[in-house]
């Protein structure tokens, strides 16, 4: 983490124009350069902090805490989708169909959200449920294809992404999803009953979807660590052969894992469509979250609470990245590079160990293989 902040700092400094200007006369006045570097790096990181957690430049707690609520808002879909990807990882499946699952879930939940008229609470819950079901169906389709035909889930989920994207794009130009009287491929605004209520009033973007993300984390934790279904999931993920010999139906585990995984990603889709963007959405509603979720899952080591923390971290990056860019003029690409460096260093412990020549912790005996010596 520290290492990545340093590496990121160097990049920020090198790309800062003031530092570049000062470096031009480095040998006559070296302190100027160092000063400029300090200002640039320090400013960038404090902007990140201010944008993501607490803005002490604003008067009063209510305004100062606003960035933190932004972070949580960004984190909500990342956590939900990250849980979905992580669950699939634990079963030995690579769900990169997050985009398609989210789009379809958002479209279905959105349709319920703007076209039906239901009482409060019921409307929201029904819309969320529909979103989860559609995400689950789309994920389960990939699981079914793998179980029935052996088609690799990486390929099928990628293809299902395209199908979902163009399907939703098409529907956005038909009366099914398009707002009446509009030429934009965009849905009408959600009915108020169908949206996630704001948690701290209209001044903040944070909505009740975050609570759903917390509940989802608890459920996934229970599922994986305490339920027999999760036990079978993990057994199949670690050793499908032994699972099969022990009477576990590996194929149905693949299908159910993808259904649940897709359902969680679908929840992320509803957080976008019914929470973050209430005024109607286009085909960019997934905002790349389906792919960021893979990173979040890896960063969280596929553990539910790890994913939760990783989702918060990523949410902070997203929220803070904007202010980093706005306040200090750090190019947005550099913000992304810093984020990626942090992920790289956290997610790849062997790399860090190699850099510092650390011994491998708890080096375990290699798996015995009954090779017949010849």
């Amino acid at each position: 983490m520290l290492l990545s902040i340093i590496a990121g700092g160097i990049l920020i400094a090198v790309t800062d124009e003031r530092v570049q200007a000062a470096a031009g006369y480095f040998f006559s006045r070296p302190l100027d350069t160092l000063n400029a570097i300090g200002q640039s790096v320090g400013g960038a990181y404090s902007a990140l902090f201010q944008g993501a957690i607490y803005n002490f430049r604003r008067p009063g707690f209510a305004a100062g805490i606003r960035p933190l609520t932004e972070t949580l808002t960004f984190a909500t879909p990342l956590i939900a989708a990250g849980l979905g990807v992580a669950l699939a990882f634990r079963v030995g499946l690579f769900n990169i169909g997050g985009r398609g699952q989210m789009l379809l879930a958002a479209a279905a939940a959105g349709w319920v959200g703007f076209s039906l008229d239901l009482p409060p609470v019921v409307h929201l819950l029904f819309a969320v449920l529909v979103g989860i079901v559609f995400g689950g169906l789309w994920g389960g389709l990939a699981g079914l294809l793998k179980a029935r035909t052996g088609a690799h889930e990486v390929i099928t989920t990628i293809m299902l992404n395209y199908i979902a994207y163009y399907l939703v794009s098409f529907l956005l130009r038909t009366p099914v999803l398009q707002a009446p009287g509009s030429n934009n491929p965009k849905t009408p605004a959600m009915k108020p009953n169908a949206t996630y209520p704001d948690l701290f009033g209209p001044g903040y973007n944070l909505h009740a979807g975050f609570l759903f993300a917390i509940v989802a984390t608890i459920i996934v934790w229970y599922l994986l660590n305490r339920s027999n279904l999760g036990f079978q999931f993990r057994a199949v993920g670690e050793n499908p052969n032994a699972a099969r010999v022990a009477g576990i139906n590996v194929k149905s585990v693949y299908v159910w894992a993808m259904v649940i995984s897709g359902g969680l990603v679908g929840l992320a889709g509803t957080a976008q469509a019914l929470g973050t963007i209430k005024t109607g959405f286009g085909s960019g509603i997934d905002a790349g979250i389906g792919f960021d979720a893979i990173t979040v899952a890896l960063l969280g080591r596929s553990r539910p609470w790890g994913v939760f923390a990783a989702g918060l971290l990523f949410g902070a990056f997203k929220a803070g990245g904007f202010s980093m860019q706005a306040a200090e003029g750090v190019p947005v690409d550099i913000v992304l590079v810093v984020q990626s460096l942090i992920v790289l260093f956290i997610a790849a412990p062997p790399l860090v160990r190699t850099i510092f020549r650390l011994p491998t912790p708890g080096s375990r005996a290699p798996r015995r293989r009954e090779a017949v010596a010849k």
Partner: protein
Amino acid sequence: MNVLYGLYQADEGAILLDGVEQHFAGPGDAMRAGIGMVHQHFMLIPVFTVAENVMLGHEETKAGGRLDIGAARARVREISDRFGFSVDPDALVEDLPVGVQQRVEIIKALSRDAKVLVFDEPTAVLTPQETDELIAIMRQLKEAGTSIVFITHKLREVRAVADRVTVIRLGKVVGEADPRSTNAELAAMMVGRAVDLTVDKGPANPGGPALVVQGVSVLDPGGQKVVNNVSFEVRRGEILAIAGVQGNGQTELTEALLGLQPRVTGQITLDGKPLVGLPVRKVLDAGVGFIPEDRTEDGLVAEFTIAENLMLDRSTGAPFVKAGTLQLNYLQEFAEQKRVEFDIRTQTVQTHVGRLSGGNQQKVVLARELSRDLRLFVAAQPTRGLDVGSIEFVHTRIVESRDAGIPVIVVSTELDEVVALADRIAVMYRGAIVGIVPGDTPRDVLGLMMAGEKPEEVAA
């Protein structure tokens, strides 16, 4: 053999070729020194042509880095004609039958002027006719001055082609033999009689037949019959050993009993209930306990704890699961109890199974299977790779199950184990049962049967 070909490095010892010590850092070195290898699983690229495969790794190029495919083609044709292989250099490897693919491997080795050719189980994938053709080719190569190392566990082939025989068992040279030795002598050397195992075992007290297997055949994914019309029965309270040299259909037969093989014909009934076609779950529920041949691959989840592995085959209901929730306290108690009962040497039952020794791993499998109410117990290679102490423990448990009135099947390639445990012995050869004989049948008779001779012929 992979050491010889440079894929692995030897820890000690030396390889001499024509009296010169060789050091192979990789297959390239071995090839340059004149060693060629024909692997059991072909090292060919299916979408390349024969000529492309043959030149792979030592491509010749014309000016500008253009591949000289013509030269490779000519080389293939030349070698193919010299030995009468009739291989088309422009055919795609994936379109060729297995036997011809193997010839491509041979051409590949010969095109690099191999003086020594290593054949690793070359006949495992061949039909009998293809095997005969391969043997003819090997003879021809020998006449042309090539040295051949032929690795096989099939006795007929050894006798057909070898000039000298070295028997290796569990990584050690057991001895040299004359190829004119009888099948029985070779079989005895292969299965060994080094350790004299004795199991404290009273006479069997068999009841009525429990498992009835009738006319069972198993097809492998390639459509070959790996188990051919096998019939036998196992009575309550007896141990039936299935003996044979590795690879004669025992693995597939036990998998068929468990419902792990997709293409099974014939009838298998346990206490009158048919088992063929049932999913594994239902077979286990019918009371079948199973120790798989490869415990790390099929028996255990290495990343799971001992406790979790103990409930692996009962993850759907009582006693470990209630209302979809794992009963962790009960599991912990249960695991502690089994740890003591089965003498699993570990600090805690939360240790990952992958960290245990082979003997302790096998005790975990044994503890899991024997803690269910069994109506049939199938143990495949139950002591492979174990230390003597663990072997004794496993054997004692197997005999105890028998004495508790459970019908037991022990599949073993170790003659000692078979003789020590069995009340009756079924010998398998090439997918069929050669004969079923009493447990006190002399070893040399068993050895002959393992080589495919009928017991009546042996007796005569």
